[in-house]
């Protein structure tokens, strides 16, 4: 602010005025008004005396209020006898006091100080205005880019301010919409207006914190948009609502997306239902298939075995060795085929059956399977050691039986050819599981096959060396998986194998 400061001098005696203006005119612009107050006048400081102060004190209050928040300094010149009276005006109508006779230096200093304060107040006000303008611009940009319309309803006049964005949402220019409340209410969908008005009415009566509404709102083009509004109330000093201010957001697209999503979800649910129904049919078919495998596939096998046996019994004497060998090959093939069917059936049943959780006395199960293999165990002089007392596990009984039958049969099959064959059973309790192990000292296998042996139809040996269907360990693995456990093996060729199964205590 480089302009020269303006001083308004209101002194009763014109000679005093002459004196003072002569003193200041070099540095300041002096104003002597024809009349006072005068709204066209601009000044930075008022100098007056006791008489003019008395005359204008009410005007001074108005003048100060008019320019608020700017500071308008008032300096009073007073005689010694009136000091107390003048002092009582300080900070009401008067900001500074000089006692007559005037000391020129003091007067200069005080005037300069007041003008400096005035300048600072102007600078502060400018800065404040600039900041306000900036932030309201930013708010407008934000509201515009977020497509948020504003409305401000004066409850006393019933007039509403609608922001340009509010109007733009429904296709109107700023000057096309008045300040009437009907600009809003006439555009709300007939089916929604009653509900909206009821909610507003209740809200005005007893307001709640998160007021919001959704309604259909007519666009200039006749289509309806979905509008989401949020609002709050502003109360006067008596606590009565005088203003309701809120936002408008166009949620049409969001609503459509939500509807599409809902449709997709219900379609998906429908599809899942269909698929489930299809799966149920497939499972039923599979069950019928396994039933038919157990019944129909075995019948012809019985014919093949029966008639080859009869052929051998009735006509064996008239056949040569080669023909008799053929017959015995037919019969052993039949037996293998039968075993394959039995194993496959059990494997597929395992897939379909529910997992049970029941007490299993593990040592008894081991004993009973050892008994079924008694002939093999005795004839090959197996040493069988069970390294644990009777223990009750909570497990799937069918699964445990499948596991033990297969592991015991395997241990015997792969160890009976070695001298002093041995089978060791172990059971180790862990924090959350049991680990059952079956260890033999048989032919073993290369660890690079340790995973593959658990896959169905995977065999490491030729059928004539070690007969089998290639399903046994796959069944072990499946039975353990069903209990959320796992199966694995450790071995070294020629040094036996140990098979482990882990059974979680809770599955």
């Amino acid at each position: 602010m480089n302009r020269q400061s303006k001083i308004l001098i209101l002194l009763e005696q014109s000679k005093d005025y002459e004196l003072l203006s002569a003193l200041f005119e070099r540095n300041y612009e002096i104003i002597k008004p024809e009349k006072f107050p005068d709204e066209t006048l601009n000044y930075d400081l008022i100098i007056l005396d006791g008489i003019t102060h008395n005359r204008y004190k009410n005007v001074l209050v108005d003048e100060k209020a008019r320019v608020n928040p700017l500071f308008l300094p008032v300096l009073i010149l007073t005689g010694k006898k009136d000091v107390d009276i003048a002092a009582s005006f300080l900070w009401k109508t008067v900001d500074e006091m000089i006692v007559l006779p005037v000391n020129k230096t003091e007067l200069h200093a005080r005037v300069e100080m007041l003008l400096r304060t005035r300048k600072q107040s102007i600078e502060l006000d400018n800065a404040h205005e600039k900041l306000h303008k900036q932030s309201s611009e930013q708010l407008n940009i934000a509201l515009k880019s977020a497509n948020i319309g504003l409305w401000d309803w004066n409850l006393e006049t019933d007039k509403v301010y609608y922001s340009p964005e509010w109007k733009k949402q429904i296709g109107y220019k700023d000057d096309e919409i008045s300040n009437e409340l009907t600009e809003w209410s006439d555009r709300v969908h007939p089916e929604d207006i009653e509900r909206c008005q009821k909610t507003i009415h209740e809200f005005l009566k007893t307001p709640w914190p998160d007021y919001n509404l959704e309604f259909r709102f007519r666009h200039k083009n006749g289509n309806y948009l979905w509008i989401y509004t949020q609002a709050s109330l502003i109360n006067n000093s008596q606590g009565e609502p005088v203003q309701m201010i809120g936002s408008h957001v166009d949620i049409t697209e969001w609503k459509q997306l939500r509807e599409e999503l809902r449709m997709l979800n219900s379609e998906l649910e429908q599809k899942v239902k269909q698929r489930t129904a299809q799966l149920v049919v497939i499972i039923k078919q599979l069950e019928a298939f396994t039933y038919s495998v157990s019944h129909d596939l075995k019948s012809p096998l019985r014919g093949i075995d029966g008639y080859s046996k009869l052929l051998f019994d009735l006509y064996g004497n008239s056949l040569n060795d080669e023909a008799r060998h053929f017959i015995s090959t037919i019969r052993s093939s039949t037996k293998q085929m039968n075993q394959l069917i039995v194993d496959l059936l059990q494997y597929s049943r395992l897939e379909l059956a529910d997992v049970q959780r029941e007490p299993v006395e593990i040592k008894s199960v081991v004993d009973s399977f050892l008994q079924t293999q008694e002939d093999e165990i005795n004839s090959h002089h197996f040493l069988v050691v069970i390294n644990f007392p009777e223990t009750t596990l909570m497990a799937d009984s069918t699964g445990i039986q499948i596991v033990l039958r297969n592991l015991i049969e395997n241990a015997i099959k792969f160890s009976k050819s070695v001298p002093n064959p041995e089978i060791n059973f172990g059971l180790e309790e862990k924090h959350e599981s049991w680990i059952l192990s079956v260890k033999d000292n048989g032919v073993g296998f290369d660890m690079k096959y340790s995973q593959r042996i658990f896959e169905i139809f995977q065999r490491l040996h030729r059928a004539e060396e070690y007969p089998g269907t290639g399903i046994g360990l796959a069944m072990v693995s499946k039975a353990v998986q069903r209990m959320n456990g796992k199966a694995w093996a450790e071995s070294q060729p020629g040094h036996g194998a140990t098979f482990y199964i882990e059974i979680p205590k809770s599955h």
Partner: protein
Amino acid sequence: MEAINSFQPILLVEDNPVDLDLTLRAFSSRKLTNPIEIARDGEEALAYIEKWEKGDPRPVVILLDLKLPKINGLEVLEVIKKHPEFKTIPVVILTTSSETSDMKTAYQLGVNSYIVKPVDFDKFIEVATHIELYWGVLNKPL
């Protein structure tokens, strides 16, 4: 009494010709003297009930396959076991099915024994022996 019993027939209900023939041969290898009557489906089996009512000799044992044309084995079993007079005739299910649900139903209907036909013919002869000993001979008053 022994003479009468040895003429009491065994009723074999079996649709599969191979199984039928092998069963007959398994019994004949045991030199069984009882005549064997044959029904080739469920309907034929039930037709025997009328004959017994008219005075034909009732069988000493009924060997019943489950999977039969027209009327299945479990239905035949149910009719026999509900018959006021013939429910005492021993019925042995002789089948390929090892379905536990079939076994359960058969026992609920009052079957006397349930034998799963082995594929191995040697074992089948053992089964025939068992049937003969238990139901053919044991039933004869000593």
